[in-house]
Structures are given as structure tokens and as C-alpha cells.
């Protein structure tokens, strides 16, 4: 329990841990496999590892690390598209720092920059817009990525570009949307999840209502969770409580940040600028229907896909890389053949090793935590009810 001292309220953590063990033992009597809870968001993955939260959980409860790290689910071909855009003459290609080191099939954006392309890290899409204003003879492209947390900011930046008539600014839109992604996970026959920790900051934007189908149609509990270690433990307890009582509901543990209806101003901006794509390609998960958004026709002049030639090649992930299986929760990072060998945070082969929110980087960085109890248990058929 070497991390317990770092909890702001260790007594509360221990108390929650006891209650979780009691609940899990009671539920576990009717089943032959562990309870699997997917934390959808990469921020939760990071928190779980940083604080060694699994130490507070009994063996019957395990986390499945979900796809909620936008950088980690970028396919190689998309990085190649970014490099192709960045290498066009007169282009300043702007991106969040997280995306710089994601490997493409030939090179990363960082390598493209070293090779002479004008790639610049920005903190905000507004900084990209300012670059466009300051460099009227150049074309400034912003690489927009992220779930609904960052989508409104990109939308507002496009609205501002239009209002100010900054026509040398455009967006390479790679925003993804959480609900179709969760639906695809729930539809997958390979998965045997018992419940979800819902993403905190995506929900701050979209609210809690869009998750209702998970409880209604799939009979799975979902608890929107904060990022504090105590939040995560509390949310795990809430999921187990639902299972124990035979309930399947959307519950909100992060009410101090997440209103039921989300952020209407942010949703309006998203609605105005973006429309849903028919499908979108994900690393490891393949193509998921309606899981991405693109710029609406009304804002075509700010759409890099319309303005420039984007190669849009499909590049298969390297054969040795098992990011896809990790993303689906089929294997744990340390079970991947290249984990800690060819693939490390210094020389990542797969995207899950690039970002601190990626499951593989988390396992790698916090390997000093005892992970022996995280090995995948042999899959057996569930005999008990799963709520």
C-alpha cells in the first residue's frame, strides 16, 4: 500500500476499499469470472496507474482500459496525412504537442519538422488562428483532434475565423465522438464488460443523457466519474452497487463538474460547425460508423480536407503491434509481444505508448506498481446475472 499516503483522505480510501471488497464478494458468489469495468477515458487510466488504484480492489474486479485517449486511436494513415499536409509549400501545420510523436508509416510530425516542414506546437486552436492572422502569406492548418472535450473549442475557432474573415486558416478535422464508439464496444461479441466509468470532461460538454441507451438497451451500469483517486474508487463502488442491486442506470459521481444537460453554449458551437461522418477509421478498432465529425458545407473554406489534397491512405498497423487488442481489452499491455522490447515511450511503435494517457505508457511508467494481479483471467462463461 505504498501509494496510500498520497491519497488526500486515506481513511476514506480504505473505507471505500472495504465496501468494494464486500460488494464484490457478494456479487462474485454467483459468477465464475472477474467483474470487468471499462474506464472509457485515458485520464482515468492515468489516474488508476498513478495512484495504484488496483491495490484497493479485490481480485474479482478488474479494469479494462477503454479507447478514450484521442492520440492513441489515431491510425498511422492519419499521421501520414498530417505529414503530407505539413510538407506542402507555404503551409504552417499546427498541432497539440501530444500528437507530435505519434508514428506514421514513414515518419512522425516531429521527424517531418526535423526534415524541414514548418510544424508548430500550439496550446490552443486560437493560437493557430493568431498565427494565420500574423502570417497572411502562409496557409495555417490546425490539426483538430479529441473527443467532445476539445471539439467545442475547435468549432468556436472556426466560427471566429469566419467572423474575422481569416481565410488562410483551415482545420484538418479528426474529432471523434464518444457515443457511437461506446455503442460499437457494446455491440462487439468479444467483450464481456459489466459496467463503465464514464468520461468526466466529455460529459461536462455532452451531459449525462446521451449515455442512457447503455442502461436501457444494454442493461449495463455507467457512472460518470471524476479524476481524483477517491472519485475513481467511489465510482467503482457505485457501479458494483448497481450490479448488486440488479440496477442498470446512468449515475453521475462528478456532479460538481458535469451538469445533466452538459454545456449548451459548447454544444451549439459544435452543432453549427460540424456534422457526423458516415464512418471513421480508428487505430486497432477499425472503422466505426458515425464516430467522427467533419466540417459542414457552410464552413467549407476552413476545411483542410476540401482545401488541400489529403492522401487519405489506409495503412495497416505494424503486424507486431497489438494496440488494437489492448484497446478492445482482449490483452493487457504487458502481454503484447513488443511491450518494453521494440516498443517503449522513447521509441513508440504503437500509439498507446505515445501519450501519458495511453494504457501501454501507463503500464510502462508505473511498472513498479505490483501488476501481478492484473493478468487476464482465463475466460469462462458467466453463470451469474450481469445486471
Amino acid at each position: 500500500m505504498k501509494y496510500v499516503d498520497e491519497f488526500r483522505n486515506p481513511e476514506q480510501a480504505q473505507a471505500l476499499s472495504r465496501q468494494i471488497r464486500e460488494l464484490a464478494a457478494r456479487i462474485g458468489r454467483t459468477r465464475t469470472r472477474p467483474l470487468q469495468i471499462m474506464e472509457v477515458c485515458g485520464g482515468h487510466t492515468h489516474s488508476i496507474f498513478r495512484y495504484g488504484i488496483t491495490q484497493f480492489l479485490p481480485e474479482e474486479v478488474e479494469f479494462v482500459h477503454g479507447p478514450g485517449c484521442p492520440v492513441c486511436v489515431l491510425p498511422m494513415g492519419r499521421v501520414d496525412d498530417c505529414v503530407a499536409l505539413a510538407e506542402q509549400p507555404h503551409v504552417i501545420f499546427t498541432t497539440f504537442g501530444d500528437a507530435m510523436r505519434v508514428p506514421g508509416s514513414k515518419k512522425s510530425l516531429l521527424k517531418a519538422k526535423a526534415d524541414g516542414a514548418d510544424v508548430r506546437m500550439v496550446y490552443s486552436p486560437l493560437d493557430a488562428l493568431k498565427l494565420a492572422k500574423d502570417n497572411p502569406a502562409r496557409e495555417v492548418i490546425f490539426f483538430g483532434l479529441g473527443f467532445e472535450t476539445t471539439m467545442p473549442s475547435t468549432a468556436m475557432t472556426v466560427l471566429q475565423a469566419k467572423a474575422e474573415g481569416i481565410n488562410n486558416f483551415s482545420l484538418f478535422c479528426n474529432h471523434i465522438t464518444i457515443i457511437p464508439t461506446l455503442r460499437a464496444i457494446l455491440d462487439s461479441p468479444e467483450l464481456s464488460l459489466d459496467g463503465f466509468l464514464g468520461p468526466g470532461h466529455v460529459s461536462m460538454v455532452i451531459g449525462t443523457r446521451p449515455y442512457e441507451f447503455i442502461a436501457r438497451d444494454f442493461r449495463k451500469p455507467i457512472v460518470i466519474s471524476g479524476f481524483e483517486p477517491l472519485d475513481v474508487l467511489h465510482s467503482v463502488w457505485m457501479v458494483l452497487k448497481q450490479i448488486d442491486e440488479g440496477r442498470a442506470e446512468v449515475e453521475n459521481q462528478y456532479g460538481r463538474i458535469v451538469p445533466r444537460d452538459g454545456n449548451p453554449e459548447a454544444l451549439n458551437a459544435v452543432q453549427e460547425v460540424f456534422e457526423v461522418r458516415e464512418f471513421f477509421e480508428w487505430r486497432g478498432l477499425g472503422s466505426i460508423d458515425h464516430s467522427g465529425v467533419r466540417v459542414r458545407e457552410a464552413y467549407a473554406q476552413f476545411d483542410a480536407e476540401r482545401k488541400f489534397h489529403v492522401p487519405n491512405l489506409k495503412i495497416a498497423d505494424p503486424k507486431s503491434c497489438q494496440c488494437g487488442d489492448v484497446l478492445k481489452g482482449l490483452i493487457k499491455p504487458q502481454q503484447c509481444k513488443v511491450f518494453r522490447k521494440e516498443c517503449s515511450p522513447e521509441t513508440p511503435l504503437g500509439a498507446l505508448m505515445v501519450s501519458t494517457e495511453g494504457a501501454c505508457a501507463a503500464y510502462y511508467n508505473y511498472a513498479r506498481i505490483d501488476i501481478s494481479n492484473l493478468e487476464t483471467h482465463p475466460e469462462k462463461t458467466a453463470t451469474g446475472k450481469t445486471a
Partner: protein
Amino acid sequence: MCLGIPGKIVEIVDPEAKLATVDVGGVKRTINVAFIVNKDHPVASCLGDWVLVHVGFAMVRIDEEEAAATLALLREMGEYQSEVDNMKHSAI
């Protein structure tokens, strides 16, 4: 990017464009407050608000206690410095 960072609004820069200055642990930068204003909470009333900032936009108002807890969390997770560095060194 996804965890955001808490800051305090210390100046309204441009009420029309909904721009304000936020102070994040002593680092000041201009952010957009369009997502936290409405007719009940106009731009001028944002002065002194604690907000959670994601990629240059205030996304939600929070209380000071939540801000302090989130700052401590980000520090412990090693995300605080990188977020502040990103703010400071952004290519503008």
C-alpha cells in the same frame, strides 16, 4: 489536453470577443470565455471566477476548493508542468 487546468479570471480583455485573462499558477494568458457566459452570467461577471481551462477555453466554472484539489491532482500526475509549458511555449 483532456484533463484541463484550473485558473482564475483576473481581467476581461474584450467583452465583445469574449476574451479574458486567466492566471494559472502565476502564468497569465488570454482565453475565450464564450462557453461559460449566458444572459444570467455575462462576460463582465466572469472577473474573479475560477474556471477549468481546456485548450484555451474556459469550459466550466468551479469553486476555489475544486480548483485547489485539481491543481494538486495535476501536479501529482505530472501533468501540471507540461500543461503550463504548453501554455507558455505555444507558437504564437
